């Protein structure tokens, strides 16, 4: 394994210490693994809380800040944080306005969230839990529990966060977030494996001339390996499936995000994006905004997640509203 680390046991603590130094104006770390805003949101507004393992930087804690998250509970590399830390964050966020608790659909995250939610209910914490599961790799008709939560949580934090800043009630913030949740889809593709920084092991195997569509963000298998295709062929193959999943048709307005997995260059993402735009134009679908970059990474894995969501006027307004976080700023 070639990585600039110290003792693998201390990865998460050390990365959070560095993260807090780099973004001291925006975030602080509490109780070792809870990332929160440097300047608190007024208590009269709904708070956003999320949880997830480390190793995906800048996700998820890079999106803590004005206009997005209030608390992010960090687990060890690729591992959900345990319920005690999650309940601690829900207690910190507790307020009369309530909490939107966003959970990505992964077995450990959901289990930890459910146990913390049970305790929070007993303690009278007002919250609503929302699970993202926008991966379409298992097929459009697959049950929700089979579909993983991928990069879609990040635009969802953005939209729900903007609604919360605007002073919407918990029911309203939840309804807006849920509408976005139901109209988004992600498909991932991988080309090269990543090394698990704690074990030093490759997280999956792929031959030099192969790619795999549907690969999850911890190397979980997708629809099986295939020969590498060109950027345009890959763009069309993935985008056509995504548009079908969200039932996008001519005249619809969409948001598109190409999220690099860690080792795929911005050059490649731009070339794929160009292919996506050509395909959208041919379908008569309007691209409201496109973003290329690294939002949720998997160490040095090569590949990307392609995300699309159908937007309406209200969702566009919240997507374009200002935010200031370590990993995303909108002015």
């Amino acid at each position, binding site marked *: 394994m070639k990585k600039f680390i110290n003792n693998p046991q201390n990865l*998460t603590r050390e990365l959070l210490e560095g993260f807090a130094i780099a973004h001291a104006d925006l975030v602080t770390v509490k109780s070792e693994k809870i990332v929160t805003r440097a300047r608190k949101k007024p208590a009269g507004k709904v708070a956003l809380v999320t949880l997830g*393992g480390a190793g995906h930087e800048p996700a998820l804690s890079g999106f803590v800040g004005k206009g997005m998250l209030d608390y992010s509970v960090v*687990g*060890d*590399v*690729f*591992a*959900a*944080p*345990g*319920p*005690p*830390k999650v309940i601690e964050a829900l207690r910190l966020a507790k307020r009369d306005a309530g909490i939107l608790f966003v959970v990505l659909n*992964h*077995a*450990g995250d959901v*289990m*930890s969230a*459910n*146990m913390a939610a049970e305790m929070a209910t007993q303690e009278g914490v007002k919250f609503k839990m929302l699970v993202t599961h926008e991966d379409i*790799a*298992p097929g459009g008709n697959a049950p929700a529990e*089979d579909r*993983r939560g991928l990069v879609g949580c990040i635009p969802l934090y953005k939209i729900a966060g903007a609604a919360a800043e605007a002073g919407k009630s918990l029911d309203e913030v939840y309804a807006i977030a849920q509408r976005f949740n139901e109209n988004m889809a992600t498909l991932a593709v991988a080309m090269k494996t990543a090394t*698990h920084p*704690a*074990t030093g*092991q490759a*997280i999956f195997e792929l031959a030099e001339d192969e790619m795999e569509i549907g690969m*999850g963000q*911890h*190397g*979980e*298998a*997708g629809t099986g390996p295939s020969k590498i295709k060109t950027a345009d062929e890959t763009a069309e193959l993935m985008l056509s499936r995504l548009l079908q999943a969200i039932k996008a048709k001519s005249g619809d307005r969409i948001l598109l995000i190409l999220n690099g997995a860690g080792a795929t260059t911005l050059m490649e993402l731009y070339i794929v994006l160009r292919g996506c735009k050509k395909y959208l134009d041919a379908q008569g679908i309007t691209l409201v905004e496109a973003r290329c970059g690294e939002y949720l990474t998997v160490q040095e894995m090569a590949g990307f997640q392609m995300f699309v969501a159908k937007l309406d006027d209200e969702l566009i307004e919240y997507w374009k509203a200002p935010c200031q976080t370590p990993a995303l700023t909108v002015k």
Partner: protein
Amino acid sequence: MLNAATEQIRHNHEMLSRLDGAVGDGDHGTTILRAMEAVAKTVAEQKGDELKPLFSAIAWAVMSCDGGSTGPLLGSFFMGLADGAAGKSTFDAPALAALFAAGIGKLHKQSKAQIGDKTMMDAFLPALAALQAAEPSAGPKAALRQAAEAAAQGAEATKNMRAKFGRARNLGDRVIGHPDPGAVSVSLLFKGFSEAL
């Protein structure tokens, strides 16, 4: 008993991570080792002989370990043991069966998995059945030995299963031929329990 179980995991965690590489993300050995080290630490810091507070402290310590679903699941098991141990200090075979029934019952509230779903329940449930079927007169050691054998057989049987839960679920037929590392871990815990008495 708990320390012997931890010892089993200490000896086998690398093998467990390798097994997980075939069906998951290759860190199960690390995760279960961290959980059992938390158990050992809690046992070492124990004050008094009462079992209920010990199991409660262990449950909280295990749940505080990050590790996908392993922490919450094992934590629930120990929470159940705490409920089952209330007011007891010695266990004959039927009392031991009742104690484990409380632990596994609590765990089953978090995991809906049944036998055949390729999870740790494939080891837990046969072990519980063996404890419940054990002759009361044979004593707790014999009962635990039968439970350990049943857990090992259950873990071995996961080789031929497809997964219905967790990350392995997405792999479909590709996990056939590989045992579930969670079930193997549970069989090692029971091996430790049975050898300790």
